[in-house]
């Protein structure tokens, strides 16, 4: 059944690509087909296939019969689970408040003694490392009586996050049946952890179970648009992924549980031969680990119905683009792993999807460039192929309109269908009701349409840099970043403004008939600094407005672990004064030596 669904989904994407190619050839042929037109057709076909693949995931999710909550299992838990929190130069007070809230959440169940929490620090900044130790003491005072809480700091960070977890398994893995792998900004309800353990216990072949984490705590307009998008659309897309996953589901690196034995047996990652960006440590290790588990016969599964799993996201375009740069390098590096021996066919396809997620941006950029250049290469039509009998070229406006409608339909159709589904199923009530959900979806679509041409250039630049051999390294995530000033936005995006102006100028000179369409793409690029800065401003007031823009269930009614974390953080920040650094001097001096061994790029 899964094979059939996969085949039908791939067929749909290919059929859409072929239809787009057919319509494009008809339209481009109006003034005779040039070699550049054929290039445009190939670029359009690849880009349409990618768009259609996104749409088909949503369609699978929408028409899935497995939607809704799976009945929860009951009974005692006798196994031991480590909740693993890898950290890397993140703000300790915030991360540790997350751990405190999760420990307290698990403490409200009857199985607290079956869970140990381990903070695995790869922090290279000596000051942050000293703060980690300070806040660990506070954490243990707050919640150390509920569960075991361990802390370990590596003097250097070989293998980065994957190496950090592997080091833990090699040191202490034999104690634990399962590992719940989190990120520094992850948050999870204790009841969800217990449910994950039970699902692992129920299926001895299950090597890894991934949850769909909801984005929380966004403050800016941009962050809240992403948060809404993740809360409103992602469960449907994830359901589509689940329907096609078979035994080779995804692993996204965090908010997942794995069978320690399976992970240890399958996921020891080697360094790839050669230098970064394509060689060296595997950056996007999660996809590879999922493929390796499947290669060893373990099932990897995503259960989108699991609630109570959260993460935080970037609050502005610049941080989003930085994260994207790292992911882009990781995904392109997978091109080295696609032909790895024994990897399942679907896992190879998943690697290719990950690569396409970034390569599609330069494909669109090339298509746009070729479309502006094409009219300049146009040959003057021969109106008199037969003397005395004029033949006028057939204008294929209908083809062009059908093509445009199709591409826009693939882009917006899934979102609008999810909105309609929300009306039919009553899901919109959780997002403030039908009218609020409608305005949120429309605003999100407008916001995405403005941001897409900017992101296209960020991603295109990332792909070019990586192909040219530039390594992004492994910067720490910055979830607490505030507003981006206009100056900062300009510094990060002036080249996008230039690219937008050049595009408009070229279209004006070479293809004035396309100028209106080109402006839809290039105008947001010219306004990039304004867009980046403007969308970074706090926008929680919009939630309280009558439109309740971008309201999500978690924002309107935070869950208990979310409330607990906020309360712990507020209390810690209010009543605990971090000791001045000189008191920690001995620790800093100690850490400095080891930090220098670490890799800071």
């Amino acid at each position, binding site marked *: 059944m899964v094979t059939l669904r996969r085949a039908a989904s791939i067929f749909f994407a290919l059929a859409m690509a072929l239809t787009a190619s057919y319509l494009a050839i008809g339209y481009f042929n109006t003034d005779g087909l040039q070699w550049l037109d054929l290039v445009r057709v190939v670029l359009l076909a690849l880009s349409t296939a990618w768009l259609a693949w996104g749409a088909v995931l949503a369609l699978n999710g929408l028409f899935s019969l497995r939607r809704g909550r799976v009945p929860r299992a009951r009974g005692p838990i006798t196994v031991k689970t480590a909740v693993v929190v890898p950290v890397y130069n993140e703000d300790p007070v915030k991360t540790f408040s997350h751990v405190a809230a999760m420990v307290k959440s698990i403490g409200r169940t009857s199985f607290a003694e079956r869970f140990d929490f*381990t903070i695995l620090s790869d922090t290279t900044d000596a000051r942050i490392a000293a703060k980690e130790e300070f806040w660990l003491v506070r954490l*243990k005072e707050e919640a150390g009586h509920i569960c075991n809480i361990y802390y370990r700091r590596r003097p250097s960070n070989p293998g980065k996050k994957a190496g950090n977890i592997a080091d833990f398994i090699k040191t202490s*893995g*034999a104690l634990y049946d399962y590992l719940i792998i989190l990120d520094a900004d992850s948050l999870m309800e204790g009841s969800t952890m217990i449910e994950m353990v039970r699902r692992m216990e129920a299926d001895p072949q299950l090597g890894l179970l991934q949850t769909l984490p909801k984005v929380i705590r966004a403050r800016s307009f941009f962050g809240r648009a992403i948060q809404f998008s993740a809360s409103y659309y992602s469960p449907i897309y994830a359901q589509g992924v689940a329907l096609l996953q078979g035994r080779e589901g995804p692993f996204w690196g965090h908010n997942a549980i794995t069978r320690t*034995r399976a992970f240890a047996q*399958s996921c020891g*990652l*080697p360094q790839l031969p050669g230098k970064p960006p394509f060689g060296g440590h595997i950056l996007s290790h999660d996809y590879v680990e999922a493929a390796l588990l499947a290669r060893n016969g373990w099932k990897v599964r995503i259960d989108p119905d699991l609630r109570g799993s959260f993460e935080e996201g970037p609050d502005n375009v610049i941080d989003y683009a930085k994260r994207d740069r790292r992911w882009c390098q990781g995904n392109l590096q997978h091109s080295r792993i696609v032909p790895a021996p024994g990897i399942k066919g679907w896992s190879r396809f998943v690697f290719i999807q990950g690569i396409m997620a970034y390569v599609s941006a330069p494909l669109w950029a090339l298509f746009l460039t070729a479309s502006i250049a094409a009219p300049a290469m146009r040959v003057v039509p021969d109106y008199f192929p037969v003397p005395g009998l004029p033949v006028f070229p057939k204008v294929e406006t209908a083809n062009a309109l059908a093509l445009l409608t199709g591409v826009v339909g693939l882009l917006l159709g899934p979102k609008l269908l999810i909105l309609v589904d929300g009306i039919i199923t009553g899901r919109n009530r959780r997002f403030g009701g039908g009218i609020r959900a409608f305005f949120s979806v429309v605003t999100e679509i407008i916001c995405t349409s403005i941001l897409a041409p900017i992101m296209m250039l960020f991603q295109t630049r990332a792909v070019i840099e990586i192909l040219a051999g530039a390594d992004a390294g492994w910067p720490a995530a910055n979830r607490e970043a505030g507003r981006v000033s206009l100056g900062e936005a300009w510094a990060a995006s002036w080249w996008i403004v230039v690219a937008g102006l050049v595009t408009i100028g070229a279209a004006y000179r070479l293809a004035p008939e396309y100028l209106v369409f080109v402006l839809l793409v290039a105008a947001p690029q010219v306004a990039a600094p304004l867009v980046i800065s403007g969308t970074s401003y706090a926008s929680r007031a919009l939630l309280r407005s009558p439109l309740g823009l971008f309201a999500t269930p978690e924002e309107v009614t935070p869950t208990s672990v979310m409330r607990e974390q906020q309360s712990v953080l507020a209390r810690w920040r209010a009543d605990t004064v971090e000791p001045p650094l000189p008191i920690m001097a001995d620790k800093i001096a100690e850490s400095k030596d080891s930090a220098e061994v670490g890799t800071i790029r």
Partner: protein
Amino acid sequence: MSSAEESLRAHHILQQSELPAAPMAMPEQVLTRRRRGILLRPFFQWLALR
């Protein structure tokens, strides 16, 4: 509590937080195929001798 006592207590908590030792093997996986060139190496060696 004096600063020295507090420091001692913090040191004690940190010591108690060390990971328990229970090693588990994690063998390195093979992700690259053997180069086909290696299969041709004897041929090239033979050719080099001619």
